[in-house]
């Protein structure tokens, strides 16, 4: 009996050896680039055309992909109504920071914009507004002198022309390469918002993924209405820094849109597919009577 069992063991191990040595056959599948995208949250492969029709939102888990400023305008404004402003304001390297020019060049190539903030005017369902969009493809949407100046001028423009203001934030915070000058943009942009208060004009801040650091701690948190787009990370300090400081793990869902809603920091969380409609309604509710 034992003999039979040993024989069986030997054969089994032989069989395993053979299986192990057999090469795994892989055949390359010919999928051209840019046809499928993988969802960062559920790892599903999604046909790019489906993704585009779905506002760049995963159809399986409803994860909102990052989008650039141009796409944001496309999803938000009535067709062909955007008129850019302040594009002639561009960055210098005031601190002489090494490799800053290279980073600016790279940002321009990645975002196909000359800075991280696109400002202008446009229409939502026929309603005029001043609109600004931070683009996270340009140096993480960081705020330096140019971003701060463009935002401030956009606010001044809205106040001067009696326009409501909508700003979409997507930013890692203040731009390190411009040091203290970037920090001061927080005061400059936040302070300018008082001009809209004086005129009774609405400012809607839409925080998208991510809105953190010096941008969260300035104009982005100061909307008359603060909207968080679904799937957004919103907060002041980075999770890694907080973990190091307090020496313990952070709760699941920390600094998500749902967290900010629960903690009372945002008015509402909105799906990207519903954003235009929501903004349109909110603008209507704040429409000023036309005085000729």
């Amino acid at each position, binding site marked *: 009996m034992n003999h039979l069992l040993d024989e069986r063991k030997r054969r089994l191990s032989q069989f395993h050896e053979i299986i192990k040595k057999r090469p795994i056959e892989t055949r390359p599948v010919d999928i051209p680039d840019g046809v499928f995208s993988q969802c960062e949250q559920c790892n599903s492969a999604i046909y790019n055309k489906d993704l585009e029709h779905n506002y760049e939102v995963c159809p399986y888990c409803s994860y909102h992909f990052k989008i650039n400023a141009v796409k944001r305008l496309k999803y938000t404004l009535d067709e062909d109504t955007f008129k850019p402003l302040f594009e002639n304001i561009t960055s210098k390297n005031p601190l002489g920071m090494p490799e800053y020019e290279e980073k600016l060049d790279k940002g321009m190539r990645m975002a196909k914009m000359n800075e991280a903030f696109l400002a202008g005017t446009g229409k939502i369902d026929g309603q005029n507004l001043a609109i600004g969009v931070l683009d996270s493809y340009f140096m993480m949407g960081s705020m330096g002198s140019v971003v701060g100046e463009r935002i401030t001028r956009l606010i001044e423009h809205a106040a001067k022309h009696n326009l409501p203001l909508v700003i979409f934030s997507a930013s890692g915070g203040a731009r*390190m390469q411009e040091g203290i000058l970037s920090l001061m943009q927080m005061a400059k942009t936040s*302070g300018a918002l008082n001009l809209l208060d004086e005129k009774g004009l609405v400012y809607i801040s839409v925080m998208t993924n991510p809105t953190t650091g010096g941008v969260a701690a300035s104009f982005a948190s100061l909307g008359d209405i603060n909207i968080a787009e679904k799937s957004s990370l919103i907060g002041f300090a980075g999770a890694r820094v907080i973990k190091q400081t*307090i020496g313990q793990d952070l709760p699941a869902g920390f600094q998500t849109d749902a967290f900010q809603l629960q*903690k*009372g920091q945002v008015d509402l969380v909105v799906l990207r597919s519903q954003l235009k409609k929501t903004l349109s309604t909110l603008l209507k509710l704040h429409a000023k009577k036309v005085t000729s």
Partner: protein
Amino acid sequence: MTDMDKVWQRVKLARSADRPTSKSLIKAIFPDFIELHGDRLYGDDEAIVGGLATFNDIPVTVIAEEKGTHTQNRLKHNFGMPHPEGYRKALRLMKQAEKFKRPIITIIDTPGAYPGLGAEERGQAGAIALNLKELMVLKTPIIVIVLGEGGSGGALAIGVGDHIMMFENAIYSILSPEGFASILFKDSTRANEAAHLMKLTAEDLKSFGIIDEIILEGKGLNTDPEVGYTNLKKQISKQLTKLMKTPVEKLLVNRYDKFKKMGEYEESVIKNEELAD
């Protein structure tokens, strides 16, 4: 000593345990200071000390970031790192000052706003942002003094004002040199190199137009604070007189313009179609 060493020396002086903290400066300059506590919403954050005093017989509101002086005391003041309730206390006292037309004197000395769970839950970003906005239009003169460390948004949240002074050996920056080094070089031990690149000394900030004035320290606040305090008193006196004479509307326009000018950028000629607007 190389330039880099000199800058690093400043960083060390600004943070050194023997540098006077806000409380000892208050004691020397505002001996009749009465502390007022709490934000009336959540609690009393002792990283920010606020209250009333007189200066040359003028009632003033004093708001300061306090790091603490020895281990127990530092813990009590959370090493000068405020939570949202600290910024809300500051704003409450500033609004009070506005009501009674009292000038405000703020003293900055913080590594930064506290990065913690509770701080995030209670809206650190929103608390800082609101101060920045409200300070810009507060209808009373604001004098800002950078005493030691001016750390990022946590400093700026009480740093928007009409006249900004900085002690000779103080630093003021967007981030700690260690944090900057870990971003720029992926190595926080190269903080001395980062500090040099960041341009965070009083002279640097004066050259950028971020601060209005440098308060000379003589031998240094760390060893002999008397000279620095005397210089500071002289300047507060001078500025208070000047700012209190300025009509409020003019004061606010000047304050807005002062911050509007901060930043450096290129501006090319505007195209014709844009001018048509």
